[in-house]
């Protein structure tokens, strides 16, 4: 049990660090709905995995998320459809298709519940090492490209003038974000995963004095929320992901009132 718990905690901590940084880009680019859409669309990958009788459907879900990320990116760039509407259409098509496939499956499907609300305690060795390596690669990608990705998102005109290939960087960012979201489903589930992206940077923005400060505080808040969330889950037998999100939500509410009430003093 201790080993399972330790592995779950390690994975959740790594993913929460990735989310704490990616969340900054997601908020600036107003892509929270994209993350939500990709997470919900992953139900199709899960359903296909079930139908094919696979014991582990992580690869199918990853392939599906990459295809959807590229599809949304290309349609966003080449059509005049509102990006939110685009994500919404792709997400409902794949979700409804996935639900129809799942409804044809007989018997109880416990993995489906874990998929919806998340459960890091249920994880194969393959998933553990796969997510660990992915987090390392993502962090390396972010460390070496943070400045360029931020400029592409914040000011594409300036990025273009200093010879940054905005198109490629944005596409790679969409793919990495989609991958992080679907792998994060293991811990946060389809329902809660976007909160892992949004809450830490939003809380940090209330107190950060600079961009560097925002990044470090977002990571600290994410890590503390995970540790406290695990303690709450262990002590009171709560679901892990809900405990983490509930704790960060309480910090958010306190910080929010502290910031806005102090403005009225």
């Amino acid at each position, binding site marked *: 049990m201790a080993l399972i718990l330790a592995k779950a905690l390690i994975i959740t901590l790594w993913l929460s660090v990735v989310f704490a940084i990616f969340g*900054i880009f997601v*908020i*600036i680019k107003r892509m929270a709905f994209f993350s939500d859409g990709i997470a919900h669309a992953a139900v199709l990958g899960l359903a296909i995995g079930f139908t094919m009788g696979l014991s582990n459907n992580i690869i199918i879900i990853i392939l599906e998320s990459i295809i959807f990320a590229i599809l949304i990116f290309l349609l966003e760039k080449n059509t005049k459809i509102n990006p939110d509407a685009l994500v919404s259409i792709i997400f409902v098509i794949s979700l409804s298709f996935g639900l129809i496939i799942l409804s044809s499956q007989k018997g109880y499907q416990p993995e489906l519940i874990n998929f919806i609300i998340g459960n890091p305690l249920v994880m194969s060795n393959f998933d553990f090492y796969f997510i660990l390596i992915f987090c390392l690669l993502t962090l390396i990608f972010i460390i070496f490209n943070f*400045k360029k990705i*931020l*400029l592409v998102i*914040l*000011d594409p*005109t*300036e990025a*273009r*003038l*200093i*010879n940054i290939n905005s198109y490629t960087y944005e596409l790679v960012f969409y793919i990495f974000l989609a991958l992080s979201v679907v792998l994060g489903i293991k811990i946060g589930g389809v329902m809660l995963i976007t909160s892992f992206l949004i809450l830490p940077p*939003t809380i940090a*923005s209330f107190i*950060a*004095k*600079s*961009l*560097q*400060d*925002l990044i470090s505080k977002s990571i600290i808040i994410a890590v503390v929320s995970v540790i406290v969330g695990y303690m709450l889950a262990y002590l009171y037998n709560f679901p892990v992901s809900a405990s983490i999100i509930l704790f960060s939500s309480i910090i958010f509410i306190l910080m929010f009132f502290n910031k806005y009430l102090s403005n009225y003093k």
Partner: protein
Amino acid sequence: MIALEVKNLTVRLVNNPIIQNLNFKIKEGSITVIIGPNGAGKTTLLKTIIGLLPYQGEIKILDGEHKSMLSSIGYVPQVYTVDNFLPITVKEFLYLSIIDDKNFNDKIDDVNKYVSIAHLYDKKLNQLSGGQLERVLFARSLLNNPKILILDEPISETDISGQEEFYVVLKKLNQEKNITILIVTHELSLIDNFASHVLCLNHRMICDLPAKELKGDVLKKLYNKDLFVYPFNNKK
């Protein structure tokens, strides 16, 4: 040498021709002012030159192919929307735009000699006044040693003393660093003693002449009314 050459340029936005068959050349080291009424296509022209809009025709920068020479341009936009969520400081904001990270401190010190912004370095971008933000955007456009500076109504929110200082700095940059300047402005009174050349634009080229030769009758043709702007209304 020619800094910018535009041949038969036509730009359409949603199938409407905003710029039609434009031809002009800008000499290296010159200061060119673009004037014209609202909606004449001035900002569209600048956005096309910096590679943001598709076009028909030809644009050459410093005798080179358009897209490959964009990094020799520094650009100050007409409007810049600051993200209120992001607590980025002025120094961090400038750092994002630097091509060669290693010499960042030397470069901002060099820029600071022309545009004084050192007192703003630790301020958050979302806490700057409109005039301070314009100063920061101007400083940013100089970071990578541009050969051509393109400015789109860059000081609309700057106070009068700041405006005067801005034009003095622009002239100094032009003289000391031989930077070619292309600026859109509505301040006609500045043309006479600041610019070397003036382009009058109203979807097509109305005038392309040395600044000293701009006269009241040209302005009347451009704006469709008599304008009493010193010194042009006195010129015959």
